[in-house]
């Protein structure tokens, strides 16, 4: 320890050098680091799950537009094509697809409104984001049940 160096000065020197040493030690590691937090290291939360579900339902609905294309093309083609479509829509597979379609659509619609509210600057507090997430899930359930209740032939709707 050289003469005239106080403890404070030594501490200052060490503090000045530490970041450089740190950067040197980190340099090889930083190249292999993931660029953003990824699914494997992320604990699922309501906010991340609703976000992923928004894209999944969006992609499913994009494929589901084929049902709309089929419905309209069949109607424009003629009675035979229309009956084929109607028979498929009323079959167990068709009903299952329609049911999945309504769930996906109501979810995407409600959560889409949540996204629009975020775009307008609302719901940024964690509590609000969670509350809106639960409201979206509840609304999806209620609207789906309501729709199929009305659609059910034996409900009298």
């Amino acid at each position, binding site marked *: 320890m050289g003469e005239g160096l106080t403890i404070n000065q030594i501490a200052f020197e060490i503090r000045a050098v530490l970041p450089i040493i740190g950067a040197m030690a980190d340099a090889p590691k930083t190249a292999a680091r993931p660029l953003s937090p990824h699914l494997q290291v992320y604990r699922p939360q309501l906010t991340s799950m609703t976000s992923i579900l928004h894209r999944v339902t969006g992609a499913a609905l994009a494929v589901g537009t084929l049902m709309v294309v089929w419905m309209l093309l069949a*109607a424009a083609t003629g009675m035979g094509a229309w009956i084929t479509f109607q028979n498929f829509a009323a079959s167990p597979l068709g009903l299952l697809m329609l049911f999945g379609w309504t769930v996906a659509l109501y979810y995407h619609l409600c959560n889409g409104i949540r996204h629009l509210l975020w775009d307008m600057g609302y719901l940024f507090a964690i509590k609000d984001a969670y509350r809106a997430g639960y409201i979206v899930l509840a609304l999806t359930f209620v609207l789906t049940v309501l729709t199929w209740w009305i659609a059910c032939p034996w409900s009298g709707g």
Partner: protein
Amino acid sequence: MKLKWENDGSIKTPAARARGLGAAHEGVKNWWRLRVAAVAALPLTLWLIWSVVHMQGWSYAEFTNWLAHPVNAVLMILSVLAIFYHAALGSREIVEDYVHHEGFKLFKLIAMQLFFFAAAVACIFSVLKIAVAG
């Protein structure tokens, strides 16, 4: 293929060129269009569900008569435009975010745009045929 952030002689740094452009490499233009289409699709989709729910057991004539009504025909065409435009932009966003191979990404983007365009044309033609030609 030249990417937008690649330097082509400009004095701008690559960071300055890429800033604000995002995964689409062209800024917020499609972000805004996606939202406008979403707002348009919102009431139209609810109308579509409401209509389809009441179509249970409809005969062919009942359905075509319903679709031939000007209000229903116009609302159906508007629904198709809003929904397919929103779907095209939305799936575009997903591909831009998750597909990283430039060639495959380009292929997927082109294929999807063409698919949604063709599907929308098929729907609109069908509605017009029923409404106008009977």
